[in-house]
Protein backbone atom coordinates (compact mmCIF):
# COMPACT_ATOMS: atom_id res chain seq x y z
CA UNK A 1 0.00 0.00 0.00
CA UNK A 2 1.33 3.44 -0.94
CA UNK A 3 1.61 5.89 1.93
CA UNK A 4 0.70 9.55 1.37
CA UNK A 5 2.19 10.55 4.72
CA UNK A 6 5.57 12.02 5.47
CA UNK A 7 8.18 10.80 7.90
CA UNK A 8 10.67 13.14 9.57
CA UNK A 9 13.20 11.71 12.01
CA UNK A 10 16.61 12.38 13.43
CA UNK A 11 18.70 9.42 14.58
CA UNK A 12 22.23 8.91 15.82
CA UNK A 13 23.86 5.67 14.69
CA UNK A 14 27.14 4.00 15.46
CA UNK A 15 29.88 4.61 12.91
CA UNK A 16 29.74 1.02 11.72
CA UNK A 17 28.74 -0.94 8.64
CA UNK A 18 26.02 -2.87 10.51
CA UNK A 19 24.37 0.32 11.76
CA UNK A 20 24.49 1.83 8.27
CA UNK A 21 22.89 -1.28 6.73
CA UNK A 22 20.08 -1.31 9.28
CA UNK A 23 19.34 2.38 8.75
CA UNK A 24 19.51 2.14 4.95
CA UNK A 25 17.01 -0.75 4.95
CA UNK A 26 14.53 1.41 6.89
CA UNK A 27 15.00 4.36 4.56
CA UNK A 28 14.59 2.31 1.37
CA UNK A 29 11.45 0.75 2.80
CA UNK A 30 10.10 4.21 3.62
CA UNK A 31 10.88 5.43 0.09
CA UNK A 32 9.41 2.34 -1.58
CA UNK A 33 6.31 2.73 0.58
CA UNK A 34 5.89 6.20 -0.87
CA UNK A 35 6.03 4.86 -4.43
CA UNK A 36 9.56 5.92 -5.37
CA UNK A 37 10.47 3.72 -8.32
CA UNK A 38 13.46 1.40 -8.73
CA UNK A 39 15.61 4.01 -10.46
CA UNK A 40 15.00 6.56 -7.71
CA UNK A 41 15.74 4.01 -5.00
CA UNK A 42 18.93 2.93 -6.82
CA UNK A 43 20.01 6.60 -6.91
CA UNK A 44 19.17 7.16 -3.23
CA UNK A 45 20.91 3.90 -2.30
CA UNK A 46 24.10 4.85 -4.16
CA UNK A 47 24.22 8.38 -2.71
CA UNK A 48 23.50 7.15 0.83
CA UNK A 49 26.15 4.43 0.65
CA UNK A 50 28.76 6.87 -0.66
CA UNK A 51 27.89 9.55 1.93
CA UNK A 52 27.79 7.12 4.86
CA UNK A 53 31.02 5.41 3.78
CA UNK A 54 32.64 8.85 3.60
CA UNK A 55 31.36 9.56 7.11
CA UNK A 56 32.73 6.27 8.48
CA UNK A 57 36.06 6.25 6.63
CA UNK A 58 37.05 9.88 6.08
CA UNK A 59 34.99 11.77 8.68
CA UNK A 60 35.14 9.42 11.65
CA UNK A 61 38.40 7.74 10.53
CA UNK A 62 37.02 4.22 11.08
CA UNK A 63 36.60 4.93 14.81
CA UNK A 64 33.65 2.75 15.83
CA UNK A 65 33.35 4.75 19.06
CA UNK A 66 32.20 7.73 17.04
CA UNK A 67 28.68 8.33 15.74
CA UNK A 68 26.86 9.63 12.68
CA UNK A 69 23.77 11.83 12.94
CA UNK A 70 21.21 11.20 10.21
CA UNK A 71 18.15 13.41 9.78
CA UNK A 72 15.65 12.38 7.12
CA UNK A 73 12.43 13.77 5.73
CA UNK A 74 10.64 11.48 3.30
CA UNK A 75 7.43 12.61 1.63
CA UNK A 76 5.48 11.20 -1.33
CA UNK A 77 7.30 13.78 -3.49
CA UNK A 78 10.89 13.88 -2.22
CA UNK A 79 13.60 12.13 -0.19
CA UNK A 80 15.71 14.47 1.90
CA UNK A 81 18.57 13.47 4.19
CA UNK A 82 21.35 15.17 6.16
CA UNK A 83 24.35 13.16 7.35
CA UNK A 84 26.75 14.60 9.93
CA UNK A 85 29.94 12.93 11.11
CA UNK A 86 32.32 13.85 13.94
CA UNK A 87 35.20 14.70 11.64
CA UNK A 88 36.89 18.01 10.96
CA UNK A 89 35.26 18.23 7.53
CA UNK A 90 36.66 18.88 4.08
CA UNK A 91 36.26 21.30 1.20
CA UNK A 92 34.03 19.60 -1.39
CA UNK A 93 34.97 22.22 -3.98
CA UNK A 94 38.60 21.10 -3.71
CA UNK A 95 37.78 17.54 -4.82
CA UNK A 96 39.02 17.20 -8.41
CA UNK A 97 36.72 16.13 -11.25
CA UNK A 98 37.27 12.34 -11.57
CA UNK A 99 36.27 12.55 -15.25
CA UNK A 100 39.24 14.77 -16.14
CA UNK A 101 41.77 12.95 -18.28
CA UNK A 102 44.48 13.21 -15.62
CA UNK A 103 42.15 11.70 -12.97
CA UNK A 104 40.43 8.98 -15.00
CA UNK A 105 42.81 6.26 -13.85
CA UNK A 106 42.96 7.31 -10.22
CA UNK A 107 41.69 4.73 -7.75
CA UNK A 108 39.57 7.10 -5.64
CA UNK A 109 37.66 10.37 -5.75
CA UNK A 110 34.42 9.26 -7.44
CA UNK A 111 32.08 9.05 -4.43
CA UNK A 112 31.18 12.74 -4.21
CA UNK A 113 30.80 12.95 -7.98
CA UNK A 114 28.34 10.03 -7.94
CA UNK A 115 26.35 11.63 -5.11
CA UNK A 116 26.07 14.84 -7.14
CA UNK A 117 25.17 12.91 -10.29
CA UNK A 118 22.40 10.82 -8.75
CA UNK A 119 20.79 13.33 -6.35
CA UNK A 120 19.06 16.59 -7.25
CA UNK A 121 20.74 18.56 -4.47
CA UNK A 122 24.02 17.87 -2.64
CA UNK A 123 25.19 20.59 -0.27
CA UNK A 124 27.78 20.67 2.53
CA UNK A 125 27.86 22.87 5.61
CA UNK A 126 30.72 25.33 6.01
CA UNK A 127 32.77 22.88 8.09
CA UNK A 128 32.33 20.16 5.51
CA UNK A 129 31.24 17.44 7.95
CA UNK A 130 27.52 17.55 7.12
CA UNK A 131 26.03 16.74 3.74
CA UNK A 132 22.43 17.52 2.84
CA UNK A 133 20.94 15.66 -0.14
CA UNK A 134 17.57 15.78 -1.86
CA UNK A 135 16.04 13.46 -4.47
CA UNK A 136 12.71 14.41 -6.01
CA UNK A 137 10.51 11.56 -7.16
CA UNK A 138 11.01 11.05 -10.89
CA UNK A 139 7.61 9.72 -11.80
CA UNK A 140 4.46 11.80 -11.58
CA UNK A 141 2.29 11.14 -8.54
CA UNK A 142 -0.39 8.54 -9.09
CA UNK A 143 -3.57 10.44 -9.97
CA UNK A 144 -5.87 7.56 -9.15
Amino acid at each position, binding site marked *: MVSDSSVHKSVVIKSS*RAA*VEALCSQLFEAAAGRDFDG*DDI*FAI*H*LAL*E*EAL*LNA*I*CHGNKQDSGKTIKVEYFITPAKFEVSITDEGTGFDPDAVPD*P*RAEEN*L*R*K*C*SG*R*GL*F*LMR*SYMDTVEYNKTGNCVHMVKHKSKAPNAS
Partner: protein
Amino acid sequence: MDKVQPKIAVEYGKNTTIVTLTEERILDESEVQALSDSLMPLVEEADGINLVIDFGNVKFLTSAVLGLLIRVSKKVYESGGQLKLCGINPKIFEIFRITRLDRVFDIYDDKLQATQSTDPA
Protein backbone atom coordinates in the same frame (compact mmCIF):
# COMPACT_ATOMS: atom_id res chain seq x y z
CA MET B 1 40.91 -15.21 12.30
CA ASP B 2 37.95 -14.15 10.19
CA LYS B 3 36.91 -16.56 7.48
CA VAL B 4 37.37 -15.07 4.02
CA GLN B 5 34.12 -15.35 2.12
CA PRO B 6 34.38 -16.43 -1.52
CA LYS B 7 33.59 -13.46 -3.77
CA ILE B 8 34.42 -14.91 -7.15
CA ALA B 9 34.14 -18.03 -9.28
CA VAL B 10 37.00 -18.72 -11.68
CA GLU B 11 36.98 -20.67 -14.93
CA TYR B 12 39.71 -21.03 -17.49
CA GLY B 13 39.18 -20.62 -21.23
CA LYS B 14 41.62 -21.41 -24.02
CA ASN B 15 43.48 -18.17 -23.58
CA THR B 16 41.45 -16.48 -20.92
CA THR B 17 40.78 -16.49 -17.20
CA ILE B 18 37.12 -15.73 -16.54
CA VAL B 19 36.18 -14.39 -13.14
CA THR B 20 32.51 -14.22 -12.24
CA LEU B 21 31.63 -11.93 -9.35
CA THR B 22 29.27 -13.94 -7.19
CA GLU B 23 27.95 -11.18 -4.93
CA GLU B 24 24.85 -9.16 -5.84
CA ARG B 25 26.05 -6.15 -3.88
CA ILE B 26 29.60 -4.97 -3.31
CA LEU B 27 29.56 -2.05 -0.93
CA ASP B 28 32.05 -1.22 1.75
CA GLU B 29 35.79 -1.35 2.17
CA SER B 30 35.80 -4.80 3.78
CA GLU B 31 33.82 -6.34 0.92
CA VAL B 32 36.02 -4.62 -1.66
CA GLN B 33 39.10 -5.79 0.24
CA ALA B 34 37.80 -9.38 0.21
CA LEU B 35 37.23 -9.11 -3.53
CA SER B 36 40.69 -7.64 -3.98
CA ASP B 37 42.20 -10.50 -1.93
CA SER B 38 40.54 -12.95 -4.33
CA LEU B 39 41.36 -11.14 -7.58
CA MET B 40 44.89 -9.86 -7.09
CA PRO B 41 46.61 -13.24 -6.66
CA LEU B 42 45.18 -14.36 -10.02
CA VAL B 43 46.70 -11.34 -11.70
CA GLU B 44 50.00 -11.49 -9.83
CA GLU B 45 50.56 -15.20 -10.41
CA ALA B 46 50.10 -15.12 -14.19
CA ASP B 47 52.19 -12.86 -16.42
CA GLY B 48 50.22 -11.47 -19.32
CA ILE B 49 46.87 -12.73 -18.09
CA ASN B 50 43.83 -12.21 -20.31
CA LEU B 51 41.26 -11.55 -17.64
CA VAL B 52 37.51 -11.34 -18.17
CA ILE B 53 35.42 -10.12 -15.22
CA ASP B 54 31.75 -11.04 -15.49
CA PHE B 55 29.38 -8.68 -13.64
CA GLY B 56 26.27 -10.70 -14.50
CA ASN B 57 25.32 -11.25 -10.85
CA VAL B 58 26.08 -7.73 -9.66
CA LYS B 59 23.09 -5.48 -9.03
CA PHE B 60 24.74 -2.78 -6.94
CA LEU B 61 28.22 -1.45 -6.31
CA THR B 62 29.89 1.65 -4.93
CA SER B 63 32.79 3.78 -6.08
CA ALA B 64 35.16 1.65 -3.98
CA VAL B 65 34.70 -1.16 -6.52
CA LEU B 66 35.59 1.19 -9.37
CA GLY B 67 38.84 1.96 -7.56
CA LEU B 68 39.61 -1.74 -7.23
CA LEU B 69 38.97 -2.28 -10.95
CA ILE B 70 41.43 0.50 -11.78
CA ARG B 71 44.04 -1.18 -9.55
CA VAL B 72 43.41 -4.56 -11.18
CA SER B 73 43.56 -3.00 -14.64
CA LYS B 74 46.93 -1.38 -13.91
CA LYS B 75 48.36 -4.71 -12.69
CA VAL B 76 47.03 -6.60 -15.71
CA TYR B 77 48.35 -4.16 -18.30
CA GLU B 78 51.72 -3.81 -16.49
CA SER B 79 52.18 -7.56 -16.91
CA GLY B 80 51.31 -7.38 -20.61
CA GLY B 81 47.82 -8.79 -20.25
CA GLN B 82 44.35 -7.57 -21.09
CA LEU B 83 41.27 -6.89 -18.99
CA LYS B 84 37.70 -7.13 -20.30
CA LEU B 85 34.50 -6.49 -18.37
CA CYS B 86 31.15 -8.00 -19.33
CA GLY B 87 27.58 -8.63 -18.23
CA ILE B 88 27.19 -5.20 -16.67
CA ASN B 89 23.53 -4.39 -16.10
CA PRO B 90 22.19 -1.05 -17.39
CA LYS B 91 22.06 0.68 -14.00
CA ILE B 92 25.64 -0.31 -13.18
CA PHE B 93 26.78 0.58 -16.71
CA GLU B 94 25.37 4.07 -16.13
CA ILE B 95 27.83 4.44 -13.23
CA PHE B 96 30.67 3.54 -15.61
CA ARG B 97 29.29 5.92 -18.26
CA ILE B 98 28.88 9.01 -16.09
CA THR B 99 32.32 8.55 -14.52
CA ARG B 100 33.69 8.02 -18.07
CA LEU B 101 35.14 4.67 -17.05
CA ASP B 102 33.39 3.15 -20.06
CA ARG B 103 36.27 4.78 -21.97
CA VAL B 104 38.90 3.28 -19.68
CA PHE B 105 37.65 -0.31 -19.64
CA ASP B 106 36.97 -2.70 -22.51
CA ILE B 107 33.31 -3.55 -21.90
CA TYR B 108 31.36 -6.33 -23.67
CA ASP B 109 27.73 -7.39 -23.49
CA ASP B 110 28.45 -10.92 -22.33
CA LYS B 111 31.11 -13.48 -21.50
CA LEU B 112 31.10 -14.99 -24.99
CA GLN B 113 31.85 -11.68 -26.69
CA ALA B 114 34.50 -10.86 -24.13
CA THR B 115 36.30 -14.19 -24.48
CA GLN B 116 36.05 -14.15 -28.28
CA SER B 117 37.75 -10.75 -28.27
CA THR B 118 40.66 -12.33 -26.42
CA ASP B 119 40.92 -15.92 -27.62
CA PRO B 120 42.59 -16.30 -31.01
CA ALA B 121 40.30 -17.88 -33.63
